[in-house]
């Protein structure tokens, strides 16, 4: 988090982490598609010729609070290929929360574990306390053959404290739910550390409502949670 009182500006950083080809960029592309252009920047992606992320993807989303505080949410992905560990470590710097995109297929368990350990190591390298930085796990590719069953995923969930979201990112399923969960976790962690409600008058509800005010949540679970959206109107 970067909190600039002089410029009345708060920057929240979310990093999408996970093994190569687990769907991190796809998640960002789907968020980008569903977000209205007034509140987001362009999606910056740097890919190799075979569509592998080379450095990172970046999608900025921004709004102003009722108090006139400028809030920027920066969504980053890391490159998944093993050789890019230094880049992963740099992108992870100063992350307020992490969305860990795992491949649900049974065969991918070893990779998921390896990147989970890599995440923990890189957090430590960046002076981030893995116990303090919230992580949300997305089990992506639920539609592929040989994926873990819901019961198995439930077992995984019980192993840790992280919220777990199922997804088929390529069809947009579970993407916004993951974003919501990771932003909520990030806000709660920042609230505990920096007292955002007290210091800048920004509460969890306003934070989440403002971010999602300009994101089309039609057909997602979020329709139940968020207030009905009036296109073009500011909440």
């Amino acid at each position, binding site marked *: 988090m970067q909190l600039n009182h002089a410029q009345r500006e708060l920057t929240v950083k979310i990093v999408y982490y996970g093994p190569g080809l687990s769907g991190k960029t796809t998640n960002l592309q789907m968020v980008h598609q569903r977000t209205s252009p007034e509140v987001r920047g362009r999606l910056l992606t740097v890919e190799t010729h075979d569509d592998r992320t080379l450095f990172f993807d970046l999608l900025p989303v921004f709004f102003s609070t009722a108090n006139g505080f400028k809030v920027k949410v920066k969504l980053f992905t890391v490159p998944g290929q093993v050789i890019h560990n230094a880049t992963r470590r740099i992108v992870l*710097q100063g992350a307020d929360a992490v969305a860990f995109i795992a491949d649900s297929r049974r065969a991918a368990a070893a990779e998921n574990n390896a990147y989970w350990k890599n995440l923990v190591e890189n957090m430590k390298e960046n002076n981030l306390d893995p116990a303090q930085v919230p992580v949300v796990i997305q089990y992506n590719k639920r539609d592929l053959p040989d994926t873990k069953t819901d019961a198995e995923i439930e077992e995984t969930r019980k192993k840790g404290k992280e919220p777990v979201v199922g997804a088929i990112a390529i069809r947009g399923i579970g993407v916004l739910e993951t974003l919501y969960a990771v932003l909520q976790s990030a806000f709660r962690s920042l609230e505990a550390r920096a007292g955002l409600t007290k210091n800048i008058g920004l509460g969890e509800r306003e934070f989440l409502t403002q971010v999602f005010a300009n994101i089309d949540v039609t057909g997602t679970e979020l329709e139940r949670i968020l207030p009905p959206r009036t296109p073009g109107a500011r909440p």
Partner: protein
Amino acid sequence: MSQRESVLQRRVTLGAMLDTESFTEVVRGFVELYRVGIKVFDDKGAKLADIKIGNGDFCGYVFSFPEGRRRCTATVGRVKDGPLALSHGARLPVLEPDLVPQARGMLTVPCFTGLRYLIVPIAWEGDQIGRVVFGPFMPEDLKDFAPKTLTEIAEGFDVGNAKTLVGKVRRAPEGTIARVMLHFGQLLQTMLFGGQKMYLTSQLHIEATLDNNRELEERNKRLEDANTRLKELDRLKSAFLATVSHELRTPLTSIIGYSEMLAEGLAGPLNGEQVDYVRTIMEKGETLLKLISSILDISQIEAGKVRLNFEPMDAVELINGSLSSLRPQVQKKGVALEAKLPAKMAMVSGDRDRLRQVIVNLLTNAVKFTPKGGRVAVTLTDVQQQPDLNAPGYRILVEDSGVGIPADQFDKIFNSFYQVDSSSTREYGGAGLGLAIVKSFVEGHGGVVRVASEMGHGSRFTLVLPVTPSTQQHILITPPVTSVSPADDRF
């Protein structure tokens, strides 16, 4: 640990995203096409581009009057550093309705001369990171030039001259200029996006490279430390082995010596059974002594303490000497021992004692693994070019008709303490050091050892040795110790 704050954590500036030179070219192109001056400033007021057109003479004339200069400076200050808000003389531009939504944030700032400026903020990720100033231009709606605010600046102000000069300034409705500005804004956004991408990725590439280097250096340091530690441990191990072997050998020599004296009756006559027992003590003592010598040899080889002593020698004599020391064992075991040696052979260079030990070790093995009635043969070839060595050399072959060695064990049998049959019930004794010593000594001569074998039919060891050994030192490499971090699987 990544020490420096990454470029991703920093606020991007307009200057970092734009390549000033090519940006200036784009601005110039626009200015020449639309005949309106363009200035671009970042949020700190630093100028990134400033291309004027048409207004130079007119503004110069106005500027030549002190009051004109004052008013002009004030207007330029307003345009450049004033707030991007409807204050300090700025108003909304007069636009056609379709343009209004896109032209959000655009301002009109009138000049006291009657000319006008349009200002548009440069927005990036919700921030205003700079501004573009268009103008001055002559608004289409301005009917009577020159206004009083201009004519009043000096008594001698020449309206006629001013009219002529202002004729070179582009005349257009505000809406037209606003349209041009919007095009420019779109182009600028595209350039900024490309520029940002280039800037962030190139910076990140540098950061990642530096971080990789740092990590590699740390890893190298750790490896060096581990290597130093291992070398020290290895040295201690060899020193320990050497000391222990020495301490074992000294009392053993006494045991053998006193047994020998007993057996020879120096301490009084012994009966037949007693002599047998004492001889057994002697034989077992000798076996133990050989074993300890082997351990001492291998520990010295591994500690790199063995220096071979090359001198001219007669290979035929070397083999004959080795054979004679083997005869008692051969006779006892009941195997046939044959030697095929050239009648005469040129002198070669080598460490006689070590090579003798090599041949004795091979022959001892051959006899050990060959059953009664079997055959052991040693062959020496004359000196000729050896393709294995790419140099002139000779071969010593030790063959037996014994149990043989499985093909998948050919490499392993040369390792220290390795036994093909390492079970506790194995038939053949030994410490598994003989062949390790053979290999070290032969390679120390710049030679090679080969093995061929057929299970149940025997084995053949071939030594290929150069006439003149190379002086290269044999280097031993200790395998690195890997650390395993015990972390639990999350998935």
